[in-house]
């Protein structure tokens, strides 16, 4: 078991003339030790995560009520989703969780370069998640516009009735309009309550995607601090640790959303 001891990392000399961020870090004067500050920060962040869980709890309970009341609307609605995109996005998020955890480990071991590479990888995985979500799921379902290389497009080849941006996007007649609540305008529903399914789907995945964006912003901020002044190291890595907790929570929510939205029948 590797452990850290702040005493073994005394104040060091500047490296390459840069400010040795984490080595110069001192806890706030109102803390007795750096560890006490770390514990308090982490506890505070867990309290915040609890409120986040309760935010999503409202969505999950809403899902429960509506699925209990309108099971057929949920079965029909879910059949419009492609479980393969959902699975791919789950894998992407799990990989990003791994790179996040590994980057914290790298900073704990003062492997600055590895830590920064892993942080960037986490950011890129988050971006891939959002791109898949918006390009292949949200945009076609809301508007009927497919990107030209969408693997689902050949199935609808007979219904293509327009294109934009020199053929990069193609419009499929009647596909769009699967929107939440009053924005709904899809003409081929088989259940009168399907707009409720779309409301739950967009609320849940939309708020989740918002959290992905916030998490990516935090990761980018961590990365900037690591690049500019080596902010994280064995005796001080609180921010990257808490950013990691936030990112894992986003993954955690998706672990439950994925089967509830994509794998029902």
């Amino acid at each position, binding site marked *: 078991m590797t*452990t*850290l*001891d702040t005493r073994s990392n005394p104040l060091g000399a500047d490296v390459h003339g840069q400010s040795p961020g984490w080595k110069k870090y*001192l*806890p706030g004067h109102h803390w*007795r*030790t750096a*560890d006490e500050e770390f*514990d308090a920060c*982490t*506890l505070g962040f*867990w309290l915040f*995560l*609890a409120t986040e*869980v*309760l935010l999503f709890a409202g969505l*999950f*309970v809403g899902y*429960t009520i509506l699925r*209990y*009341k*309108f*099971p*057929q609307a949920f079965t029909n609605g879910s*059949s419009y989703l492609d479980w393969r995109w959902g*699975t791919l996005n789950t894998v992407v998020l*799990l990989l990003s*969780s*791994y790179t996040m*955890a590994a980057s914290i*480990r790298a900073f704990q*071991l003062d492997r600055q370069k590895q830590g920064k590479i892993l942080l960037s990888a986490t950011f890129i995985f988050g971006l891939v998640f959002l791109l898949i979500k918006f390009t292949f799921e949200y945009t076609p379902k809301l508007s009927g516009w497919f990107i030209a290389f969408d693997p689902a497009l050949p199935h*609808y080849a007979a219904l293509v009735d327009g294109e934009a941006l020199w053929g990069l996007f193609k419009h499929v007649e*009647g*596909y769009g*309009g699967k929107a939440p*609540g*009053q924005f709904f*305008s*899809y*003409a*081929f*529903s*088989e*259940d*009168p*309550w399907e*707009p409720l399914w779309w409301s739950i789907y967009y609320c849940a995945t939309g708020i989740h995607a918002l959290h992905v964006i916030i998490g990516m912003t935090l990761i980018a901020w961590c990365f900037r601090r690591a690049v500019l002044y080596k902010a994280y190291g064995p*005796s001080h890595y609180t921010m990257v640790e808490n950013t990691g*907790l936030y990112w*894992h*929570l986003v*993954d*955690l929510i998706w672990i*439950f959303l994925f*089967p*509830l939205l994509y*794998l*029902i*029948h």
Partner: protein
Amino acid sequence: MSTPHAAAPEVFDELDPHGMGAYTKHSHHIVSGMTLISILMILLGFTAVTVGAAQVEKWIEASLHYELPRWVNVLVAMSIATVKATLVLMFFMLLRYSNPINTVVFLFCLLAFALFLFFTLLDLSTRGMINPIKAHQVEAGGIGGIRAGWRADAPIINQAPVVFWRERKIAAVGIERYNELKNILTHPHEHHAAAPVSSGNLSGNRPGITPGLFEAAAPEAHDAHAPHGSAPAHAPAHAPAEPAKH
């Protein structure tokens, strides 16, 4: 339990300026790289299991012509998700190694969620015990009375939007073209048997709703154009008889 008095440090420690290390200093655990990789592999494996389980359920339903109860799907999916979530919490979010108070905070949060869910389900599942009508939804007509679109000047439609937009499309392109479009657009990925009747119709007493409004996929009047002898794509196989009382 006695607390040791803080010993005067031999060397001044900037991170422990008051020499309080004996009270609050501890070592931070670093998870081994092998553990992280193993957890990732297990999580990916469980993702495959949960996708596979859903496929198996579909296969059972298709080959045995038997509709599994809904709780099977929910129970299997949620059990696997809970195992995955526990792994993430313990090894990625470090609850296994960090201050136990963090785990307490999270468990209390889950307790609040469990209470929320429990009383909701208690309400939902016992509504029919006193008045059977209340076992089902009581309001009628889908989510009616909304605007036909997002613009402020869009007309208010006094109808379920599903019906409104279907009627509009049929009026625009005709019933033959509508059915053509529907055949291509509906359920492209799986060809499972759609329930013949909407859940709206499976409900109990729905005062005020037009009888038979949601019985077939398309309104009856338009089906007159369909060739003789061919049943509509989603014809109600065992549509319940409409109650005579109004």
